[in-house]
């Protein structure tokens, strides 16, 4: 018995070490963002907000932030608008070639982003269209669509078909049924899909490097450009802002939706 316990505590220790390994670099970015030193490195010499203040005056970064937010939001809305009906079709209907089409729609996950980047750019070039915001947007929709599909499908499997059939048999039309029955039950998955696609779009570098022009750079592409002249405390500050932003959004959404669900149970 004693041997079993020591084995288990080794497992616990190992897991703890993996956590430390995984989070030390992230914590270092946040810490170093407050380092007043000129070079973004250890040791820490006091705490200062000067890099954040400098950041807030950097108009090209603010522009990139705006681009990223707009692009992410549009991507989230479009891919859910495309993905939710597709998920409905796959889960609620039987038709020929279903397996194949489902794999086809999820395929972009397995296609390397570089290839996706080259492919779409090549196509646009053949059409003799310039790189534009639209190119970025459609590209990001393709990148994120599979995730929306997977998340919404997984949730839809758990929603009983009988609810919808009951509504239909009581005289609701299919659209009413969707709005009154399916949509409220599906809402958490739709929200999760939107958040996921927003984050993927917000974070994407590789494919975006192919598609972005100097005018519509996103934050990660901007950071990539800044990195050419080594890591500066400003990059750490920007990284800290990004970490807080992209981590707090899903946590907040989870919190809000839980409150929302609990509130509805009470009534």
């Amino acid at each position, binding site marked *: 018995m004693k*041997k079993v316990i020591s084995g288990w505590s080794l*497992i616990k220790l*190992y897991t703890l070490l993996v956590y430390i390994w*995984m989070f*030390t670099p*992230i914590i270092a*970015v946040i810490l*170093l963002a407050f380092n007043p030193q000129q070079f*973004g*490195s*250890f*040791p820490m010499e006091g705490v200062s907000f000067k890099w954040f203040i400098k950041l807030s005056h950097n108009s090209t970064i603010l522009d990139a932030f705006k681009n990223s937010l707009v692009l992410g939001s549009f991507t989230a809305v479009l891919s859910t608008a*495309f993905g939710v*009906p*597709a998920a409905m*079709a*796959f889960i609620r*209907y039987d*038709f020929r070639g279903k397996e194949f*089409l489902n794999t*086809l*729609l999820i395929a*972009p996950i397995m*296609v*390397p*982003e*570089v*290839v996706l980047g*080259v*492919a779409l750019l*090549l*196509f646009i070039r053949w059409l003799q269209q310039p790189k534009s915001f639209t190119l970025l947007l*459609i590209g990001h*929709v*393709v990148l994120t*669509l599979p*995730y929306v*599909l*997977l*998340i919404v*499908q*997984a949730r839809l499997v758990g929603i009983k078909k009988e609810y919808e059939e009951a509504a239909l048999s009581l005289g609701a039309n299919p659209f009413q049924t969707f709005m009154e029955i399916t949509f409220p039950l599906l809402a958490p998955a739709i929200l*999760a899909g939107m958040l*996921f696609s927003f*984050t993927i779009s917000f*974070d*994407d*570098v*590789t494919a975006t*490097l*192919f598609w972005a022009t100097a005018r519509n750079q996103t934050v*990660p592409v901007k*950071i*990539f450009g800044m*990195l050419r002249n080594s*890591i500066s405390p400003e990059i750490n500050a920007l*990284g800290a802002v990004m*970490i807080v932003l992209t*981590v707090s959004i*899903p946590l907040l959404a989870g919190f809000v939706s839980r409150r929302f669900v609990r509130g509805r149970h009470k009534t």
Partner: protein
Amino acid sequence: MKNKPWKPWVLLAPSLTAVFFLLVIPVCFVIVYSFWLRGPSGQDIPAFQFGNYAKFFKDFFYPSILLSTLRVALETVFLCLVLGYIPAYFFYRTESRLKPFLMVLVMLPFWISFIIRTLSWINILGDSGLINHLLLKFNIINAPMPMLYNEGAVIMGLLQYLLPFMILNIYVSLDGIDKSLAEAAKSLGCTEWQAFKEVTLPLSLPGVSAGCLLVFVLTCGTYLPPMILGGPGNEMIANLIFKRVIGTLDWPFGSAISTVLMVLLMTIVYTYNRYMGISQIFKTLSNES
């Protein structure tokens, strides 16, 4: 609902159109372009010849990048497995109240920008990074150890990016195993270790292999870690494609390299699907959020 066979097609139309025009056709373009010629002044000339592929395999330069990509991918898969299995097993067995919190922590990196996670290693491994700072401070070394801009640093970045995928894949598989099976083995006289080796480990292999495939495929297409953490000798195949297409605008050759990469990965994924079934991966990915 049943007597309208066109309905699912209406629901599918937007996504199918999008994926067809924005993925299928563009990928076909890449394949077609890979047979084209590049004119002396850089224009693309339609042709059907294998010159671009011949150029790729002519001397050892390009295949060696392909081989080192595969080597890095295998190393990353192996290390992900070593680092990931035990935490996944911990989640499976633990009865701690903190379990949901710890699971969220594992998934947290999914939400943190990839480029930030990659560059964060500069703060740790750099000449004035955390490790060198501590070693110098305690007089263990006299001059900073160079740890950045080599294959090890690239793999560090890759591991941090891919480990959550591996842990989740293994955990999803472990979670489906009835714990009483291992108990039964133990009551029949197995030791804890034997019960794990003979019962739990074999049953968790679908998750292990799904995690390995995902990590392998994602590593093969990776662009950022070699760019940020690697040196001149650590280029991977994606960096080569980017350089040929965006750098020298050699579309036909860039397309040929892309095709080589695609064919390679498709062969691997196809073989995997043939023997293991790919649905395991999709199952885990849909749990990510």
